[in-house]
């Protein structure tokens, strides 16, 4: 009986195909935009959270940043060679270790991992590759949860002896040694030969930009080796002018001890560094806080999206109501006839409600389809992998059917209340 009612509703809607389609259009677009936006927000969410998590939830990150003064100087395009010096120093790394480290006076961090970016050309035999060079200590791999794929990561001995070894990220390994196993082979950085002792598993971006956020395309060397072999200046030459920067440590990762507050460690570290610097050249990031901010932003985004979706469904619903009212007026005599044939008020109510629901059901299904297509097209254009939350499809249909039920009720009640005597009258 229920199925028969729905079939009857569907065939009544098919009498005015164009009109029904136009009436459902609002619903279709409403549902489509909701589905598409849900997908996009999910993509963005996974992306941001992925990056933050790869930075380490229990870490505090100190970054050396170029101070104002030096940036102004760079803009002047002087023809003279010059040198800039700023940021964290090895001394400060030692100080942080001695105070906050496991053997320090106030044990608050399990590791202090320095990172230093180098500007050396990397070659494997005749093959050159655009690979980043980063000097760090053995703790890096465990602190960043970066797994070794082959061989080993840097060791304490490498650092103590300033060994000429290096470890390659997955992409760097492929670029330098496309055909052979890199472990045991030799790469050349500048004029220095280093032995490859390990290859890391793929990791993905850990930030939006910068050498330090692309671990897969990186070659790691022991921290001490970078000073012993390449000095403490990073020099870039262009058209006869040399630009030297002296940055001893570009980044320090503080792995915070369990049950110690991240913000407390960040404050102490920042204070320690700031008091020793004349200018502000170190920034502090707490990935966990970024995550919280992301969650907040996501909540706001969902509210905005939800409201937009609700508004478009409201508009769609009003369209449905409108068309059903027109339907009712046009089918006045049909209503009268059905009453004469034994339909109760309830039967008329059900007939009209099922028509608006079927209309919205079909609209919802089309809307979900259209929304998914839109999300896929957007994904293609923006070059990201589209993700759909599986519950969003039934939700879209459910919401649209509910809209049909709600907005179809008023016309249906009007139809049911119609006096059959008046309804049967021919004007």
């Amino acid at each position: 009986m229920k199925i028969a009612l729905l079939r009857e509703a569907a065939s009544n809607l098919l009498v005015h195909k164009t009109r029904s389609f136009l009436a459902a259009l609002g619903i279709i677009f409403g549902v489509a935009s909701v589905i598409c936006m849900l997908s996009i927000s999910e993509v963005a969410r996974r992306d941001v959270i992925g990056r933050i998590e790869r930075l380490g939830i229990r870490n505090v990150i100190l970054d050396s940043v170029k101070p104002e003064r030096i940036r102004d100087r760079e803009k002047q395009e002087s023809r003279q060679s010059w040198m800039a010096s700023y940021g964290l120093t090895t001394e400060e790394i030692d100080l942080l270790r001695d105070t906050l480290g496991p053997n320090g006076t106030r044990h608050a961090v399990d590791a202090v991992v320095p990172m230093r970016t180098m500007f050396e050309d990397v070659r494997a035999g005749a093959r050159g590759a655009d690979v980043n060079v980063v000097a760090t200590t053995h703790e890096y791999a465990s602190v960043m949860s970066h797994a070794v794929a082959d061989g080993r990561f840097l060791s304490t001995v490498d650092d103590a002896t300033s060994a000429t070894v290096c470890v390659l990220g997955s992409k760097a390994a492929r670029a330098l040694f496309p055909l052979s196993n890199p472990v045991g082979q030799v790469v050349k950085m500048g004029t220095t030969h280093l032995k490859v002792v390990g290859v890391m598993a793929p990791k993905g971006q850990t930030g939006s930009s910068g050498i330090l956020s692309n671990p897969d395309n990186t070659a790691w060397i022991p921290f001490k080796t970078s000073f012993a072999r390449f000095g403490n200046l990073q020099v870039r030459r262009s058209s006869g002018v040399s630009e030297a920067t002296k940055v001893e440590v570009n980044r320090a990762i503080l792995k915070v001890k369990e049950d110690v507050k991240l913000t407390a460690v960040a404050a102490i570290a920042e204070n320690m560094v700031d008091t020793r610097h004349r200018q502000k050249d170190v920034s502090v990031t707490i990935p966990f806080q970024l995550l919280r901010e992301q969650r907040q932003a996501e909540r706001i985004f969902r509210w905005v999206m939800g409201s937009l979706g609700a508004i478009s469904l409201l508009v769609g619903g009003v369209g449905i109501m409108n068309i059903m009212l027109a339907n009712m007026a046009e089918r006045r005599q049909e209503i009268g006839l059905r009453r004469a044939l034994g339909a109760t008020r309830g039967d008329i109510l059900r007939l009209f409600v099922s028509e608006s629901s079927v209309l919205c059901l079909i609209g919802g299904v089309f809307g979900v389809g259209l929304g998914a297509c839109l999300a896929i097209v957007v994904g293609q254009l923006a070059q990201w992998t589209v993700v759909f939350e599986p519950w969003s499809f039934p939700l879209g249909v459910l919401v649209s059917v509910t809209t049909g039920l709600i907005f179809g009720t008023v016309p249906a009640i009007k139809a049911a209340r119609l006096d059959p005597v008046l309804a049967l009258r021919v004007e």
Partner: protein
Amino acid sequence: MALIQLESVSKVYPMAGGDVHALRNVSFAVEEGELLSVVGSSGSGKTTMLYLLGLLTDPTSGAYRLNGREVGRLSDRELARIRAQEIGFVFQSFHLLPQLTVLDNVLLSTRYGAVDGASGSAATKKKATALLEEVGLSHRMAHRPRELSGGEMQRVAIARALLTEPSVILADEPTGNLDEVNGEQIFRILRGLTEQGKTVVLVTHDLALADKTDRSVRLKDGEVVDEDRTAA
């Protein structure tokens, strides 16, 4: 006891410009198997009376007994069931649904509270086909109403009214939109129904037609002014 019995029934429409007394103190009875005509000038209350007999509207005062049952006390649901099973309507303007085929229009009468259940059942379809054959339209079953002539449409409407095997047929000027030949044909069908024991109330303008019925009731301004036995 008479099948239909009205006792001083009145129908008042309260309107802004004053009450409209569509029926005043109407009393009469219709026997089973009788072909009764209701005549009267326009606005005299004929349609109002027919819809009242068909339970589409209720009297403002007075009593209506159908088959010995006082219908004033029945619920909306029970009234609808009686309309579905015991009453068949035929209208001046046919009231066929344009979106349905001829056969589906006939089947529509079993849609609400049909006696033998499912309106789509094979048995019901067979019966509908047989009825269409009886009114000479078995070859038009798959057509839409707009493809038929007025007389044909009215024959479809009669088939629809008969499908549920009602005991009472209420016809409101069924020949009003038809020419003489077609009107004559419809009348013959209605006449034939009374021979099968059905009771028919026929509202008409056509006095010649009224003359051929068993009995005629004349309404004037909502009152029965004349009741005469004609052909009998």
